[in-house]
C-alpha cells in the first residue's frame, strides 16, 4: 500500500510564498509559445477586447468614408460598388466583430474577477473561441481589401444576396463570417453561464451577484437561443449559393421572407446582446461614484431578465412594410412598446440611485450621464417606430439610421467608453488621464449628436438609407454636411481616447488596487490582477463586499497550490461544493481553430471541403481531448 501524501494547500503558506507558488502554477510564460497557448481568461479577454476595438476603428473608418461621400450631393469620392461594400462592412463589423464580441468578452475578463474565482469554466474553449473569432474577422477584412467585400448589407436580404444577384463570393464571405463569429459567441456564452452558475465565491447568493454579471448571464442565455437562427439561415444561404438548395428561391418553392424572419429572430435579440451588458456596466459603475448601493437591485435584475424574454418577441417590427397581416403586426407593436417598460425601470432606478448622492463627477460618471441623455432619445424613437403607421413612413430612412445609432452608440458605446475609463486601471495597472477623459467625453457628446441628430430630420425629409449619393435639388445637402462634420469630431474623440491609452500606458505611476474605492470583488485584487486572480478565495456577505468589510475580506482556504484548482459552489446559495482542477495552457485550441477556419473558408468554394476538412478536425480534437493524466485532469 502506498502512502498518500497530503498535497500542499494554500492554508500552509504565508502570502509571499503563496504568491510565488500560485504564480508558478497559474502563470503564462512571456514567450510566443506562452502567448499562443495561454488559457488565462484575463489575457484572452484583454486580447478579445483589443481586437474588437481594432475592428471598431476599421468599421469607424468605413463610416467616415461614407460620411465624406454623403457630405454633399453628387459626390464622387467612392462609387456605388465601393459604397455598398463600405456600408455592408461597417454594419457587419460593428455588429458581429465589435459590439457583440466586446460586450461578451468584457464578461470574459470581468466575470471571474467579480465573482471571485480564478478562471472561466472551459478555459481552452475560451482560447479556441478567440482564435476562431480573430480568423473570421481577418477573413472578412482581407476579402474587402481584395475587392470581395460583401455588398448586400449587414442583413444580406435575399434575393439580392442570393445566387442570382449576389456576384462572386461576396455574400458567401459574409455568411461564413457569421459562422465564425457565432461559433465563438456561443462558446463564450456557455463559459459565462457555467462560470456564473457554479464558480461564484462562497456567500455570493443570487441576490448578491454584481449586476454586470447578471447582465452577462442573461445575455449568454439569449445568445444560446438566438444565434442558432442566424447560423442556420446563413448556412442555408451558402447552400443556396453553392449547391442550389432553393431555400430562398421563390421561383422554386422557396420563400424570400423566410430569410427575413430567421435573420431578425436573431437580429433583434442581437441588439440586446449589446445593450443588456451595457446596462450591466452602468449599474456596476454607478455605486462607485454615488458611494452607496444601487437603488432597486431586484427590479434591475428582473428588468434584465424581462428584456431578455421580450426581445424574442419583437422581430417582426423590422418587417412592418413587407405586407404581413395588419392584426399580427399590431401584436408586435404591443410587444415592442412593452420592452420600453423594463428599460424605463432601469433608467428610473439609475436616476434614483444618483438622487441626493455624494456624486463624484469623474469621467466614467460623465459617460453614464451621456448614456442616459442619448439612449433615452434612441429608446423614445424606438417607441415611435414600434408603431406600425409611423414605421411605414420612417422605415428604411435616415430616421432609422439616427434611431439605431442613438440606441447602439448612446446605449452601448457610451457605457463602453465609461467602462474603459473605469476598468482600465484594473486591466493595465494605469489610470487614464482624467482631464483628457473629460475632454474625450465632451468631444464624443458633441460629435455624436452633431452626426446623428440631423439624420432624424433627413429621414423625415425623405432620405432613404443605403443610397450612395443624392441630387442637389433634394435639399439634403446642408444637413448631411453637418452630419459629416459631426462624424469627424466624433472620430477625433476616439483618436483622443487612443492617445490617452497610449500615454497612460507609458506613465510610471501605477494604479492602486482600488482607485475608485469601489465595493465589488475585482477591486480586491491587484491592478492588474495576478495570474491566479485571488491568493485566497474571498467569502462574500453583501452586494458590495469591500464596503461591508473595508479592512480585510474573509477567505476560504484549502485549495491546492501544486495544481490549478478552483472552488465550485452551489447554484443558488453559493455554498462551497467541491474543488475542481482547471485546465493548463495547451496549443490544441489554436490548432483546432486553425483547421476549423481553413475548413470553413474552403467550404464556400467547394462542398468537398467539409468532407476533407473533417479529417484534420477529427485529428486535432482527438489530440485536444486525449487523456494526459496530469494533475488538473484527475
Amino acid at each position, binding site marked *: 500500500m502506498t502512502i498518500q501524501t497530503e498535497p500542499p494547500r494554500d492554508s500552509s503558506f504565508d502570502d509571499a510564498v503563496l504568491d510565488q507558488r500560485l504564480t508558478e502554477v497559474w502563470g503564462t510564460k512571456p514567450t510566443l509559445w506562452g502567448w499562443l497557448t495561454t488559457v488565462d481568461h484575463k489575457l484572452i479577454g484583454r486580447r478579445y477586447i483589443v481586437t474588437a476595438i481594432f475592428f471598431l476603428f476599421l468599421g469607424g473608418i468605413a463610416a467616415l468614408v461614407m460620411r465624406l461621400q454623403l457630405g*454633399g450631393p453628387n459626390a464622387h469620392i467612392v462609387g456605388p*460598388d465601393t459604397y*455598398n461594400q463600405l456600408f455592408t462592412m461597417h454594419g457587419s463589423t460593428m455588429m458581429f466583430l465589435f459590439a457583440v464580441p466586446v460586450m461578451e468578452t468584457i464578461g470574459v475578463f470581468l466575470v471571474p474577477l467579480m465573482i471571485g474565482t480564478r478562471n472561466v469554466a472551459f478555459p481552452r474553449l475560451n482560447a479556441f473561441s478567440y482564435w476562431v473569432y480573430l480568423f473570421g474577422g481577418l477573413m472578412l477584412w482581407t476579402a474587402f481589401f481584395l475587392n470581395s467585400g460583401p455588398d448586400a*448589407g449587414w442583413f444580406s*436580404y435575399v*434575393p*439580392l444576396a442570393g445566387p442570382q*444577384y449576389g456576384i462572386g463570393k461576396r455574400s458567401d464571405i459574409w455568411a461564413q463570417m457569421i459562422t465564425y463569429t457565432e461559433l465563438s459567441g456561443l462558446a463564450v456564452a456557455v463559459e459565462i453561464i457555467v462560470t456564473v452558475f457554479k464558480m461564484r465565491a462562497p456567500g455570493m447568493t443570487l441576490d448578491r451577484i454584481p449586476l454586470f454579471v447578471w447582465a452577462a448571464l442573461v445575455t449568454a442565455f439569449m445568445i444560446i437561443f438566438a444565434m442558432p437562427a442566424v447560423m442556420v439561415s446563413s448556412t442555408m444561404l451558402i447552400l443556396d449559393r453553392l449547391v442550389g438548395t432553393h431555400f430562398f428561391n*421563390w421561383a422554386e418553392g422557396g*420563400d*424570400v*421572407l423566410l430569410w427575413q424572419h430567421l435573420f431578425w429572430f436573431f437580429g433583434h435579440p442581437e441588439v440586446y446582446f449589446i445593450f443588456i451588458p451595457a446596462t450591466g456596466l452602468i449599474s456596476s459603475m454607478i455605486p462607485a461614484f454615488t*458611494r452607496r*448601493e444601487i*437603488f*432597486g437591485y431586484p427590479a434591475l435584475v428582473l428588468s434584465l431578465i424581462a428584456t431578455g424574454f421580450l426581445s424574442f418577441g419583437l422581430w417582426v417590427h423590422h418587417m412592418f*412594410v413587407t*405586407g404581413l397581416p395588419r392584426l399580427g403586426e399590431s401584436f408586435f*407593436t404591443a410587444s415592442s412598446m412593452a420592452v420600453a*417598460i423594463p428599460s*424605463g*425601470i432601469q433608467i*428610473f*432606478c439609475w*436616476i*434614483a440611485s444618483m*438622487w*441626493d448622492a*455624494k*456624486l463624484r463627477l469623474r469621467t466614467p460618471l460623465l459617460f453614464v450621464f451621456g448614456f442616459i441623455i442619448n439612449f*433615452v432619445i434612441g429608446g*423614445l424613437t424606438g*417607441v*415611435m417606430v*414600434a*408603431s406600425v*403607421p*409611423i414605421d*411605414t*413612413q420612417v*422605415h*428604411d430612412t435616415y430616421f432609422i439610421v439616427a434611431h439605431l445609432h442613438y440606441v447602439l452608440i448612446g446605449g452601448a458605446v457610451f457605457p463602453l467608453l465609461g467602462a474603459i475609463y473605469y476598468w482600465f486601471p484594473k486591466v493595465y495597472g494605469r489610470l487614464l488621464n482624467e482631464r483628457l477623459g473629460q475632454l474625450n467625453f465632451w468631444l464624443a457628446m458633441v460629435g455624436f449628436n452633431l452626426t446623428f441628430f*440631423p439624420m432624424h430630420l433627413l429621414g*423625415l*425629409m*425623405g432620405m*432613404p*438609407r443605403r*443610397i*450612395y*449619393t*443624392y441630387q442637389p*435639388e*433634394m*435639399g439634403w*445637402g*446642408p*444637413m448631411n*454636411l453637418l452630419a459629416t462634420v459631426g462624424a469627424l469630431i466624433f472620430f477625433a474623440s476616439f483618436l483622443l481616447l487612443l492617445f490617452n491609452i497610449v500615454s497612460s500606458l507609458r506613465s510610471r505611476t501605477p494604479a492602486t488596487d482600488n482607485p475608485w474605492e469601489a465595493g465589488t470583488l475585482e477591486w480586491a485584487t491587484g491592478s492588474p490582477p495576478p495570474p491566479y486572480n485571488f491568493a485566497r478565495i474571498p467569502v462574500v456577505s453583501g452586494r458590495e463586499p469591500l*464596503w461591508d468589510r473595508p479592512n480585510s475580506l474573509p477567505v476560504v482556504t484549502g485549495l491546492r497550490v501544486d495544481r490549478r484548482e478552483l472552488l465550485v459552489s452551489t447554484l443558488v446559495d453559493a455554498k462551497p461544493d467541491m474543488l475542481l482542477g482547471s485546465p493548463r495552457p495547451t496549443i490544441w485550441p489554436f490548432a483546432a481553430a486553425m483547421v476549423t477556419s481553413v475548413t470553413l473558408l474552403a467550404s464556400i468554394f467547394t462542398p468537398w471541403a467539409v468532407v476533407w476538412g473533417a479529417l484534420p478536425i477529427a485529428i486535432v480534437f482527438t489530440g485536444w481531448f486525449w487523456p494526459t493524466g496530469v494533475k488538473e485532469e484527475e
Partner: protein
Amino acid sequence: MNARRFAQQIALAAAPALLAGCVDSQSVLNPQSGEAHDLARLFWIFTTVCSLVWVLVVAALLTLLLRRRRPDSTPETDNLEQQSRKTAVVAGLVALTAVILVLFTLGSFYTTRGLIAPGPHPLLIKVTGAQWWWQVEYEDSDPTQVFSTANEIHIPVGRPVTFDLEATDVIHSFWAPNLMGKQDLIPGHRNSLTLTADKPGEYRGQCAEFCGLQHSHMAFLVVAQTPAEFWAWRQAQLKPAAPPASGQQALGQHLFVEGSCATCHTISGAGAGGKTGPDLTHFGSRSTIAAGLMANTPSNLAAWIKDPQELKPGVNMPQVPLSDHDRGAIVAYLEALK
C-alpha cells in the same frame, strides 16, 4: 467650397423648418393625402409626448446634479424613509410609462385600422419594381383601356387609388412620403397600398429598400391631377405613339426599331416591342429620364444614350455605339413622343 457657401450651408442646416418649407415634394412633413395626414398626426402626437419625456429625464439629471452633496469616500445607505419614497416615485413613473405605452398602442392600432378600410371603386395601378426603375400598368376590366408607362404615375385627386405592388428581381419598396407610408415589393408576394390624393401636385417617391448598385437612383414621380386633367392624360396615353413629323424623327424611329433599342423597349404603334426596359410610347410626355435621375431634356437624353454607365453605373441599359448624327435623330424622335 468657399467659406461663405459653407456658412450658408450651416445656417440652412440650423433652420430645418425653413428648409422643409422649400424642399418638400418628398417629405413626411408635408402630407398631401388623407392617409398621409393621419400618419403625420400620429407622428406629431408621438413626437410631442416623447420629447416631453426626454425633457423630464434631462431635467431630473440636471436637478440631481444641482442637489448633489459634497463628495467623500465613506459608503452610505439610504435610510428606510428615503428608500420608500424613491420606491413610490419609481413605481409611479413606471405606471405612467405603461399608461402612455398602452395609449400609444391603441393610437397605432386605430390609425392602422382607419388606413386599411376599403374605399369605393379604387383606380387600380400595378407597379412592378425592377433594378432600377418602375413599371406602371393601369389596369381595367376593359382590355382596350389598359396601358403601360414607367417611372411617372398620374392619379386623379379625390379618388382612392390602389397600387398592386410586385417585383421581378429583388426586393424594392414603394414610397411617396407626401401621400402614404411605404410598402415593399417582394418577388413571389403581392402587396398593395391604397391612397387618395387631396389636391393636385407633383410628388416624388423613391425606392426605400436597398436593391443593389443603383438603389440611389430609383425614383418616381406621382402627378396628382384634377379628374378632368387625369382623364385627358389617360386618353393621350391610350393612343399609340405619334408618327414621326420630320425626316430626322423618321430616321430616329428607323434606328430605334431596327437597332438594338427595340430589344428592350416598347413603342406601341411603331413596331418596337421589347419588354425588359421601360415602355417609351409616350416618353416625351414624362418629366424625368432614368427613373428620376435627370430632367427630360434633349441634351440630357443624348448624354444618357451616349453612356448610360457613366451616369448610372451598373444600370442594365448598355452603351450602344451610335454616331452623333444618329443619336440626335433618336433623341429628336423620342422627345416628340408626347
